[in-house]
């Protein structure tokens, strides 16, 4: 093998300009492929992260106007869910249901000293904040006692804390929502970088008593589920919930406009499909670029073989078999492809690493644009195949020339 490599090295040293030309084509192709793959991976990871697609566990229920007559009632009626509906749903003990979160949202102005912000105050139950992919960073979550006693306590998002209190620990401070003084009992921080919102959470009983004392309509209800592994099970649960809630709020179970049910799992499935198509598309573009490089290498190898016809003829006259000539040309093509392919790959990896370091998750839906180990292995295989593909036709051409013609060429 060392002899073969030496042969190839000598041949390459003798044709430096050609080697650079062919190598550039392959290196560029590999650079584009790796950069595209890294970027596509960054988009995929960013979408998963930003869209919480890796933690799908919520079914969201919202109400609107009826579109189908129901029980002698007309269409175009507003229907609403109440806390009783949420409690009744929880008490049904449907399979897979882990929690039910009724919520009530109110746009408010929050004031602390000279600082104020306009935000949404969400009335919620314990664990709702965590189900929204927040963690309690300081203090505590809303608890059952807060709800039972209608305490004026709140949990603020980290960004809101920063806006209102700067770097000070907000727990124990007071904040005034539309004239009502609330005690800050906790600070919550979104689990993912880059998407910190200004938001505030308080016991649902307190918020509804303050802002909607006569009309106990929920803004939304979320059902957290666990253990569901396929869409059939999810559709079954969704259907059970719809059949249970719809009659209670006065609409047909077939009326998907009156009771809108959205589940993240299905969104994930659809988004995953889109992302997998994106991945395939990127591979196609990348490989097409690489293929252009391979065609370039093959063409230049053809010219080279033509230039080397006499030399290859001499080798055959000295006892080289066709197989050894083909091997020589193929190995040369593979080595050129590998050397420059690796250079292109390393540059591509370097660029994606640089992007990852510089951007650091600051660009929405674009996170850690680096290539995975599997992709690198795939690229290696592609390089070897590309080298063989680039060298095969010239190699065959080299041995189909009649020996006596090769010696006199």
């Amino acid at each position, binding site marked *: 093998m060392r002899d073969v490599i030496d042969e190839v090295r000598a041949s390459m040293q003798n044709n430096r300009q050609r080697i650079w030309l062919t190598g550039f084509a392959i290196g560029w192709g590999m650079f584009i492929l790796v950069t595209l793959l890294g970027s596509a991976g960054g988009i995929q990871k960013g979408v998963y992260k930003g869209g919480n697609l890796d933690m799908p566990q919520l079914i969201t229920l919202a109400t609107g106007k009826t579109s189908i007559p129901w029980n002698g009632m007309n269409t175009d009626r507003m229907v609403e869910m109440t806390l009783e509906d949420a409690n009744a749903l929880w008490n049904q003990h449907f399979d897979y249901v882990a929690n039910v979160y009724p919520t009530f949202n109110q746009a408010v102005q929050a004031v602390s000293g000279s600082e104020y912000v306009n935000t949404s105050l969400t009335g919620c139950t314990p664990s709702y904040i965590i189900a929204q992919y927040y963690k309690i960073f300081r203090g505590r979550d809303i608890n059952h006692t807060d709800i039972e006693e209608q305490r004026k306590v709140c949990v603020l998002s980290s960004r809101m804390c920063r806006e209102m209190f700067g770097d000070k620990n907000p727990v124990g401070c007071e904040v005034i929502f539309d004239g009502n003084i609330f005690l800050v009992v906790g600070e919550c921080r979104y689990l993912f970088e880059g998407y910190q919102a200004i938001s505030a959470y308080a016991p649902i009983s307190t918020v509804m008593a303050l802002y909607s004392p006569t009309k106990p309509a929920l803004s939304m209800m979320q059902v957290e589920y666990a253990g569901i592994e396929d869409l059939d099970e999810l559709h079954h649960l969704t259907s059970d919930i719809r059949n249970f809630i719809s009659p209670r709020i006065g609409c047909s179970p077939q009326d998907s406009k009156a009771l809108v049910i959205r589940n993240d799992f299905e969104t994930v499935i659809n988004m995953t499909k889109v992302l997998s198509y994106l991945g395939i598309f990127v591979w196609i573009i990348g490989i097409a670029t690489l293929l252009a490089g391979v065609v370039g290498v093959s063409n230049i190898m053809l010219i080279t073989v033509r230039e080397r016809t006499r030399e290859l003829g*001499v080798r055959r*006259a000295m006892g080289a*078999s066709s197989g050894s000539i083909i091997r020589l040309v193929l190995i040369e093509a593979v080595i050129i492809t590998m050397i420059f392919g690796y250079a292109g790959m390393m540059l591509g990896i370097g660029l994606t690493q640089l992007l990852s370091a510089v951007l650091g998750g600051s660009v929405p839906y674009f996170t850690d644009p680096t290539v995975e180990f599997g992709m690198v292995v795939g690229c290696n295989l592609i390089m070897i195949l590309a080298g063989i593909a680039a060298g095969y036709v010239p190699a065959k051409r080299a041995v189909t020339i009649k*020996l006596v013609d090769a010696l006199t060429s």
Partner: protein
Amino acid sequence: MIDFKGIHKTYPGEVPLHVLKGVDLHIDEGELVSIMGPSGSGKSTMLNIMGILDDYDEGEYRLAGRLVKNLNEKTEALYRNELIGFIFQSFNLINFKNAMENVAVPLYYRGVKRKERNRLAMEYLEKVGLAEHWHHLPMQLSGGQRQRVAIARALISHPKIILADEPTGALDSKTTQEVMDMLREVNRKEGQTVIIVTHEQEIANQTDRRIFFKDGVIFKDEK
């Protein structure tokens, strides 16, 4: 050593060229033979067929007792490597290999290890008086030196036959004589069969047997 019986060769084309028209020839082991004839008489074609560089259409060719017809490509390569040493008018050295590497090429294809290859190549370069030029590329050598490298390359694998196609055609008279002396010495000392295609009567006169070609047939064979 070489047996030609009724060898015919025609080059196809719009007007097919019938180059060899039933050549019968026997050359024994250890002979020093020259083949002469005007251009187009078929002498080089004959040498190419002898060296399994070209095939023939009709007849029978036996090389060292083995029938050379319809051989697979690998066997042809093996025969060329083991039985034949070539010397060409234009030297046919590999331009990016130095003198030692050029001489070692036949051994490379015989699977001889690099160290042994290089040792033998140096030994043969010594024999042709070029040991001190072992590291020179062909373009750094004179015509005569290049041909001596080619001779060393032809000899290194101890072939039974040396085929030389106009080996002195590109050399001056002094160098021509040096090359001929070398070939005669190989023939005399090593007992190898040496067949030389030449235009030059002076070269032919230095061989033991002279074969004259005309219009694709042997018209004179003298010793």
